[in-house]
């Protein structure tokens, strides 16, 4: 009697154990992870014939525990279907662990495009695992509005200016991020760089630059580093630098900050160090050549003197 009771008790226990073990696998998730896009639109209002336009739309979600397959449905007028391409294609997977997935959309306006406003949309639909009778999936629709015109539109933003730490003997360096939201090429026209001591009390040098600035294509962003040669040897230590960039006479960005000059080899790779060495030692080389020339002249003069005395 006791044995059968224990046997029944064991059966109940085993059944309960396996039920609890399997339960999480058979019960679907009770809520869908949030899903969307940022920005949720593509508005290109200043396109011209032949323009290339690029925009990144981030597909975003709060729960990134699993891969998420995405299918893109384009709803566009036939005229502009061939203008739009996506780097990722129309079917891709947002990998597990990724909460913000960038989708690069490229628009190439043909040279023979008609002037006008073109509208359509693209829908990113997620494809989750099947759950229940009607599986619900989330999507995001991106309205697209393109305007092709003839106007010149300028929109420049300096996203970032950083005065970089450098090595002893290098010229001051400035890292710049230039964002061109307009439909014409943009670049800086000039820049000034002022170099101060560590307390910003004494100005050591000023450098003006009027050329050598890279051009940034319409609707794109470029990041680059600009050297400002100064007539001052920068030894190891701290200095203040103040840089201002101009378009015409208008300042479009600037930064004043303390930067470090580090000992040689701290930042550069072996090749860079070698080049840096050559650059620094050039002065020494000139000095040596000068001495040798003087010695040569001295030797010739001495020889001629002897000859004259002999004759």
């Amino acid at each position, binding site marked *: 009697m006791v044995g059968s009771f224990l046997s029944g008790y064991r059966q109940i226990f085993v059944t309960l154990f396996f039920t609890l073990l399997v339960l999480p696998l058979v019960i679907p998730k009770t809520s869908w992870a949030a899903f969307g896009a*940022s920005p*949720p639109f593509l508005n290109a209002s200043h396109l011209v014939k032949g323009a290339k336009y690029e925009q990144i739309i981030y597909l975003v979600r709060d729960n990134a525990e699993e891969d998420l397959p995405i299918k893109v449905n384009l709803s566009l007028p036939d005229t502009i279907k061939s203008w739009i391409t996506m780097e990722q294609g129309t079917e891709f997977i947002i990998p597990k662990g990724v909460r913000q997935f960038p989708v690069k959309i490229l628009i190439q306006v043909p040279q023979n495009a008609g002037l006008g406003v073109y509208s359509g949309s693209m829908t990113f639909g997620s494809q989750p695992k099947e759950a229940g009778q009607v599986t619900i999936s989330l999507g995001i629709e991106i309205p697209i509005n393109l305007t092709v015109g003839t106007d010149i539109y300028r929109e420049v933003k300096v996203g970032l200016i950083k005065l970089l730490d450098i090595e002893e003997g290098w010229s001051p360096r400035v890292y710049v991020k230039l964002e061109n939201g307009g439909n014409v090429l943009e670049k800086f026209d000039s820049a000034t760089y002022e170099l101060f001591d560590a*307390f910003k009390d004494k100005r050591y040098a000023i450098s003006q630059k009027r050329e050598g600035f890279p051009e940034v294509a319409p609707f794109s962003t470029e990041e680059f580093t600009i050297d400002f040669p100064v007539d001052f040897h920068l030894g190891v230590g701290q200095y203040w630098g103040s840089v201002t960039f101009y378009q015409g006479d208008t300042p479009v960005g600037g930064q004043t900050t303390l930067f470090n000059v580090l000992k040689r080899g701290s930042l550069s790779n072996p090749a860079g160090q070698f080049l840096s060495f050559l650059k620094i030692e050039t002065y020494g080389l000139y000095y040596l050549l000068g001495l040798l020339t003087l010695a040569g002249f001295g030797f010739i003069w001495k020889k001629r003197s002897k000859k004259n005395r002999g004759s």
Partner: protein
Amino acid sequence: MVLLIVGSIFLISAFAIVQTVFGASSTVNVSSSVTVGNAAPTVSNVVLNGGSTIVLTPNATTAITVSFRINDPNGCEDVIVNGNTTSTVFRSGVGSACSASNLSCYIISTTTSNCSGNASTTDATTTFGIYYFADSTNGASSSYDAQDWVAHVAARDATGATSSATSTHRELNVLTAIELSTTSISYGSISAGSDTGSTNQSVTSTNAGNSSTTLRLHASSTLASGANSIATSSQRYSTSSFTYAGTSTALTDTVTTVSGFLITSPTSTASSSYSRATLWGLAVPGGTPTGTYTGSTIFTALWQQ
């Protein structure tokens, strides 16, 4: 004459040697004292989010960094250990002296830095958790299209001397996103030739972004069991409860906007204020073979200005 000149040179040289030797050898004790005064700290190189546009994550906070450089001639510890820094990330329209708000103004007084020893300069970083409903500043959708987000860092040393600096302006993107209350709709068991009547299945959509959104619906695959299927239009929905079919709308295979459905942009995490339900019913036509029918419906968010 020559003798006179040589003699003068000798005397001058002798005088110089005597001056040098005896002057150098005489010892004078000079006591020195100096008072090191306080120098105000400086803040520079303030960079918001690495100089990039801010992209938020739906229904969550997103970590955004502000990096900056602090210099204090009395040593960086004069600020980092004995003083303090206050970093503020804010929408430009509210100004750096703003009151804390999850919509437009985040203030943090803790920072991580590499300050050590007697170094006068340190690079520091403050990390902010920006909510998904923070005010957007780009695109015509935003009320703040003409504004941007900015970081402001103020440093104070042990004596109370202060300095501050701001970053370049950065956009905060519009985010349109929704979260659903369930992953599936289950109608249960329905006999052929009958419908769900007054029993509705509910799916709640919650705004998980910083913009208003509407809802668009379509069936990506109709209810099917092997070769058998139930027409897509047999599934119907409404924003209020209904007795099948009543005033409900038939589901379609093409994307359709749900009439009268709009969820405004949240201003807090109180999700119930920014949620709306759609209610669902189903009719199974007479003659439909028995079986388990499955399908799929897509809920699509669409940004609204």
